[in-house]
């Protein structure tokens, strides 16, 4: 009855009724909007304001003058960066480090999941998982502290080398070892944790598939190749796209803790350079330009990776 009355009231003059409806909807959601208030303030202040702040990459930003008063210089900082001695070194280091991570680091958890999947003892399986998850929970500062100690000239690694009759090496001071140290420790840290997702995908495989293929005489390798791998392929593709999309920004904190001037030659990447220029030298505008370059390249890579994967495998992020 009441509903019919209000419908009558809100009927003919469409403009008025629309306004009324909006009003009613807003009233209905008033507490929900109240909840969203802090969330939206947060996004404006700490996400969108900095996005607007990117304009300083095209200015000679002076803290006293602010975003609006500082002098515009167009692409000057970008051109300076492209022409600087560091440009190619940074590009090379960033790409190479990530290339090795992709080649060795990315497949490692997949391999672990596949191997674990073949283990029949539940206890052994759980033990391996529990132990390999642990490093994920240890803070980056502690991890790097441990790495530093293990590869120092009287550290664990050199001790083992000495046992084998080899000389000690000051690994962290030599640029040629930085990438191996970085990638190896990264696998150590992440292999167990990253394998969870693949493991979850594996546990969803229908066991009847395996039984059927056994009937057809498939051996273990054939089963792995034709059933297990295809089952986790969509997961692999999605994670690969995400990894590629983060290519230029990954590992920032770890490199910052691990590198030193002696190893800048191979260890300095775009994001650490932004940090040194911006935070340590206070070259705000120049560092923002470098950072923006980084973001744009990253995003382009993400889009390309996504497009390729949509073409060849039908899995994509959007």
């Amino acid at each position, binding site marked *: 009855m009441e509903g019919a009355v209000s419908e009558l009231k809100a009927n003919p003059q469409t403009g008025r009724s629309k306004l009324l409806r909006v009003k009613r909807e807003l009233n209905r*959601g008033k507490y*929900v909007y109240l*909840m969203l208030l802090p969330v*939206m303030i947060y996004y404006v202040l700490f996400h969108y304001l900095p996005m607007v702040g990117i304009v300083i990459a095209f200015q000679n930003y002076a803290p006293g003058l602010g975003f609006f008063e500082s002098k515009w210089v167009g692409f000057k900082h970008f051109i300076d960066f492209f022409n600087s001695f560091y440009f190619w070194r940074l590009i090379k280091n960033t790409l190479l480090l990530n290339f090795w991570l992709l080649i060795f680091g990315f497949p490692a958890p997949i391999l672990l999941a596949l191997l674990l999947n073949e283990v029949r003892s539940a206890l052994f399986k759980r033990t391996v998982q529990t*132990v390999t998850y642990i490093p994920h929970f*240890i803070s980056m500062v*502690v991890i790097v502290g441990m790495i530093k100690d293990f590869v120092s000239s009287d550290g664990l690694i050199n001790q083992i080398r000495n046992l084998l009759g080899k000389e000690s090496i000051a690994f962290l001071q030599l640029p040629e070892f930085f990438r191996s140290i970085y990638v190896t420790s990264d696998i150590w840290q992440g292999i167990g944790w990253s394998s969870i997702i693949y493991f979850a995908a594996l546990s969803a495989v229908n066991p009847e598939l395996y039984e059927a293929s056994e009937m057809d005489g498939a051996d273990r390798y054939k089963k792995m190749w034709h059933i297990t791998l295809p089952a986790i392929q969509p997961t692999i593709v999605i994670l690969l796209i995400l990894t590629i999309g983060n290519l230029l920004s990954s590992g920032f904190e770890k490199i910052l803790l691990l590198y030193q001037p002696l190893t800048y030659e191979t260890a300095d990447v775009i994001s650490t350079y932004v940090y040194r220029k911006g935070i340590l030298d206070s070259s705000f505008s120049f560092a923002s330009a470098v950072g923006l370059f980084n973001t744009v390249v990253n995003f382009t890579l993400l889009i390309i990776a996504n497009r390729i994967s949509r073409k060849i495998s039908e899995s994509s992020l959007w």
Partner: protein
Amino acid sequence: MVYKPSFGDRLFDYLNYIILTLLMISTFYPLYYVFVVSLSSIGEIAKHGSLMFYPRGFTLEAYQSVIENNYILKGFRNTIFYVVLGTSINMMMTIFAAYALSRKWLMGRRAIMVVIVITMFFSGGLIPVFIVIQKLHLYNTIWALMLPGAMSAFNMIMMRTYFQGIPESLEESARMDGAHDFQILFRIILPVSMPIIAVMILFYAVGHWNSWFSAAIYLQNRELFPLQLILREILIQGRISDMGGDTSNVAHQVAKNLKYATIIVSTVPILLVYPFIQKYFVKGVMLGSLKE
């Protein structure tokens, strides 16, 4: 069907077990080694070098120095405070946003969702954020650690997905009884969402416990330093600030067992709760993966 292992199968099994065992040892030994060294005396460590399987010259000296070090203690206290306050802010924001954006009838829901999701792909970058923090006068205050990461869009989406799975009839009957959204959220939605809430609390809390970078760039006041910054001085810069007022950079080599004792003291709290929370974490990762 009877399983009959062939020679190839058995070889595969053996190799598999060997590889996985080696992996376990290489993961576990470094951690165990840290523990062993932290309990050994400096002289014995120097004599036996770095390959040890049990404590040599057992002593708790290193732990005593750690516990007596004022900065480590203060860092510990600060970190606990940051974990509690930071996680509370995170949870409030995440729950509010997830609840709001899971109400299908809410006007503007899509637009707000887009506003949030965009930030997962675009950001101003380090320097503009730094300038904003300065301009807001948050520099050198604890709010510089609490506010910039007040909510994770990814976690919010996970929680929203969970909320959307709760039957709407529950909400409707409460609304009939005149409950408003805060009551519905706290009395109906949250009590049935405990698993996801536990996961989120853990993710956020571990994040705060381990974070050091924002403190490194936004804090100057040593009294506010979280544990991880103190650890960085000790473990990475090899510097130790003794008790009392001596904050000058009198750098001297930190003894190895002292370093390792600090590692143990700062890592054990998380590792202790870890066996109990592992299954929640794993669940969280899987929820995250389902979302894709």
